[in-house]
């Protein structure tokens, strides 16, 4: 019983993980998504995005991350996602719809989230408390 109580206490003091649904992200503009990510990560949270960012949004996120880096403060982000997939549907091609399919993405502060190994279909990461 005591052991169970200790386990609960440990998880409360741990690091918060927010799982953000595809629907919530779909309602946001690119800048809103990036602002949300940076605010959450800077407050030491780790985000798991059900459907990640487009390649353009990822590039913008890298750019804005660099602007926010400070010595002895924020050192950047760790971001991992699987390579995007190209939508091969014939209708998409005919009507020129965006054919990039984004995928699950994990983002966290660089000093807390470390990628151990990344493969085409498996990401292994560790979260450290500092």
């Amino acid at each position: 019983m005591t052991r169970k109580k200790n386990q609960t206490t440990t998880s409360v003091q741990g690091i918060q993980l927010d799982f953000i649904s595809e629907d919530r992200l779909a309602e946001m503009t690119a800048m809103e998504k990036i602002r949300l990510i940076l605010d959450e990560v800077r407050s030491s949270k780790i985000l798991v995005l059900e459907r990640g960012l487009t390649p353009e949004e990822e590039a913008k996120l890298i750019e804005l991350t660099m602007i926010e880096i400070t010595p002895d403060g924020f050192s950047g982000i760790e971001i991992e996602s699987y390579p995007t997939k190209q939508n091969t549907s014939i209708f998409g091609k005919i009507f020129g719809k965006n054919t990039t399919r984004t995928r699950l993405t994990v983002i966290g502060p660089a000093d807390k989230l470390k990628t151990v190994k990344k493969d085409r279909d498996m990401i292994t990461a560790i979260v450290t408390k500092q």
Partner: protein
Amino acid sequence: MKKMQIRLFSWIKKLFKKDRMAKIGIYGPPNAGKTTLANRVVRDWTGDAVGPVSHIPHETRRARRREGITIEANGTTVSLDIVDTPGLATKIDFHDFMAFGMKEEEAKRRAKEATEGVIEAVKWLEDLDGVILVMDATEDPFTQVNVTVIGNMEARHLPLIIAANKIDIPEASPTRIRSAFPQHTLVPISALEGQNIETLYDEIANRFG
């Protein structure tokens, strides 16, 4: 199908472009050998060099553009502007530079310049006609930087060549990169020693010509 699409796009672009030369960016993570490759290409075709190289990450902190590099390969002549870009990264910690023996102040300055360099490299992505993505063949190819650059090129239907660099090192495994990104043209090279560099020129002529 993908290759046909890219060729069609390149052909249409060529049809409408005037005298503007294609701008080709050399991209990749820090220490992948981007400047070594840029120096190799520019030296081979002009006798000049682009910039200094170092084992310390983020040696290149400003994009450098060399205009009008004419490459003759595979029976084709292609004139390009080559843009050597700073290494892309998602994190920069000045303590990492101190591990290379830098004083704190110098390390902080380098870190600041490195962040500016990454921003510049990202900005250049919007203004290029193609990319040579340099990957260190001794490292894990699935870095987010590689995934992001490839994603951007695919989304914009722009041509991309992956240069699997450092094949002079025994641990290098271009095969691992090939299996990671099988949809893209890959050339294993040693930019430092010039190994297989002629094959890269052939591909440059094919893809960017």
